[in-house]
């Protein structure tokens, strides 16, 4: 963990998943990390721009990385799997091909944008707090024990695979979320689909194929007795939480399992104000029992 990061929340945390942004800022403050804003960045393209217009994708990525560099930040802090993979893929391409980087920088100069010299790394919040001094720092602020809370970790794909670009941990047997769940005093629940895909990238274009994927983690986590699922990715969150209704109809059974962002789980253990979690923004509501186990006071009446 470092003391200062260029903070790239990505579009989901900035718009529809604002609860992730506020929880992240709150936890960063507790950890004494400075999050430097990046006011001019665009969407990273979520693999879609990468697929549709690869050259444009490399340009907008170089522009994002160049802005971090100009702000004097060595590392971008990401809170989204998809942003993490996309920016790291672009970074690798730019760092390994000087001719490509030169051409892109010429174009960036021509439109008056910041150029990129190749000196930035992209790290996900999960990686920063699940090992080394970041892990120690988190343990020291985890003052509340979430004893009795059963948490199913859902990693999602693009923080694990392909490991030659991500490479933080064994993609077939990751343990970082489990480590953090334990550090919160909660109990990690194991189930096979925790490393599989939630189907989000195709949920609009190929709904049935996507729902067939989405039901697996929901079904398995519920069956294994989990109270909540926690995920490091706002896209995984969106599909597990907001598309849960559709998955339930598709599978012909109810799940009713609340989905937490990683920063919310960490925040609960760190005793952060409930208002930062913005649970009202979740589609699948947290029951009073789950809130009690999360140790967040459930003000009945103001929140379901």
């Amino acid at each position: 963990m470092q003391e200062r990061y260029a903070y790239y929340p990505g579009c989901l945390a900035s718009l529809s998943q604002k609860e992730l942004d506020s929880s992240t800022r709150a936890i960063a403050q507790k950890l004494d990390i400075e999050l430097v804003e990046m006011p001019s960045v665009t969407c990273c393209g979520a693999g879609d721009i990468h697929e549709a217009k690869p050259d444009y994708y490399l340009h907008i990525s170089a522009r994002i990385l160049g802005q971090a560099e100009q702000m004097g930040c060595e590392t971008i802090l990401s809170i989204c799997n998809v942003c993490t993979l996309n920016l790291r893929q672009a970074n690798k391409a730019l760092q390994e091909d000087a001719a490509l980087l030169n051409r892109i920088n010429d174009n960036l100069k021509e439109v008056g944008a910041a150029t990129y010299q190749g000196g930035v790394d992209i790290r996900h919040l999960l990686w920063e707090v699940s090992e080394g001094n970041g892990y120690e720092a988190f343990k020291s602020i985890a003052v509340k024990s979430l004893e009795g809370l059963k948490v199913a970790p859902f990693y999602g794909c693009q923080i694990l695979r392909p490991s030659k670009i991500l490479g933080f941990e064994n993609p077939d047997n990751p343990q970082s979320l489990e480590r953090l769940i334990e550090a919160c005093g909660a109990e990690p629940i194991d189930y096979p689909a925790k490393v599989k895909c939630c189907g989000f990238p195709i949920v609009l274009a190929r709904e049935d194929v996507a729902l067939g994927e989405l039901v697996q983690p929901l079904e398995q986590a519920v069956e294994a007795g989990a109270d909540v699922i926690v995920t490091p990715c706002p896209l995984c969150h969106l599909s597990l939480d907001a598309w849960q209704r559709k998955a339930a109809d598709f599978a012909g059974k109810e799940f009713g399992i609340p989905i937490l962002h990683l920063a919310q789980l960490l925040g609960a253990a760190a005793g952060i104000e409930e208002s930062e979690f913005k649970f009202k923004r979740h589609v699948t509501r947290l029951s009073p029992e789950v809130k009690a186990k999360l140790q967040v006071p459930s003000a009945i009446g103001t929140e379901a």
Partner: protein
Amino acid sequence: MTEIKNAHLTTLKGAYDTELMEATLRIRRWDPDTQRARFDTFTVTVPVTASVLDALDAIKDTHDGTLAYRKSCRMAVCGSCGMRIDGGAALACKTPMKKFVDAGHTITVSPMGNLPVIKDLVVDMAPFWEKIRAVKPYLDTKDEEVPDTEWRVAPEHGDMIHKESLCILCGCCVSECNSMESDPDFLGPAALAKAYRFVGDTRDTDTRERLRDLNGAHGIWDCTRCYFCNQRCPKGVDPRDAIAKLGAESFKEGFVRDEGARHAKVFVDSTFKGGYLRETELVPKTIGPVNAVKDIPFALQLARAGKVPNPLSPHKAKDNDEVKRLWKLLEKEAKGAERPRAQHPDAVREG
């Protein structure tokens, strides 16, 4: 143990000086006659250099001759020995046994996924070959007559399809493909990597037809980007990247009608409209207005939770004009560019 006297031969030491180890493997058996599955655990003595395939050979030789698996080259070339090792598909001949023995770990060996099992570790590759065949895995130059001399492909043109040409058709990428689990008819990573190998071939003249077919049901837009294929491929083909290249080629050729393509386009547009993606536009633009109406109750549920940003107050990143100018610049550049083509042998001869 053979003493190696000649210093020149010390590089061969491994071949003579066979230090041994005990390897334990748990194997999923499938008996087609009884239609029953079971797990058998075997311990065999093998050289420390043994692969998982060598260990299977030792089991077959010394313990159970009925154990069924495929192999041929035992050097990661033929693509026969794909199987799941601890749940993830890999070539048995390319996976060293020692790391597991050192860790005191008993590996579980099972057949590849997404394909029917015939016996033990042998899967039926017929559905795999069917999909490979479906993408027309051969060059179509529309030549009525075979030219007298060979086509010459410039090295930089060869590079464009180099990775995809490395495929040994082993099926490891297909084994954990999450979209194929959900849609068994999905063409899948191996066939799509093969498709790109010909779409990107500068001699092939069937590009548009190929792309049109790949943009249909069960085609490239089925891929959920789980990246299991890139993770598993033992030859560095990176099938998911090939699928992304097929998407980019489809855009170049104007195939933008598929929901998957429309979805991708919303992202592109959002960057220069406001910087960040506007999910309000994503749903109707991807699935079209009629379907979006059907989804109104669902959309309302999302809206209540604040998941649908107000369309009237778009997010605006600072300095977004830079991005607009960038887009225009690149579009101008791309307009002039033609698809690279290899020269026909006859033209080379005459010219």
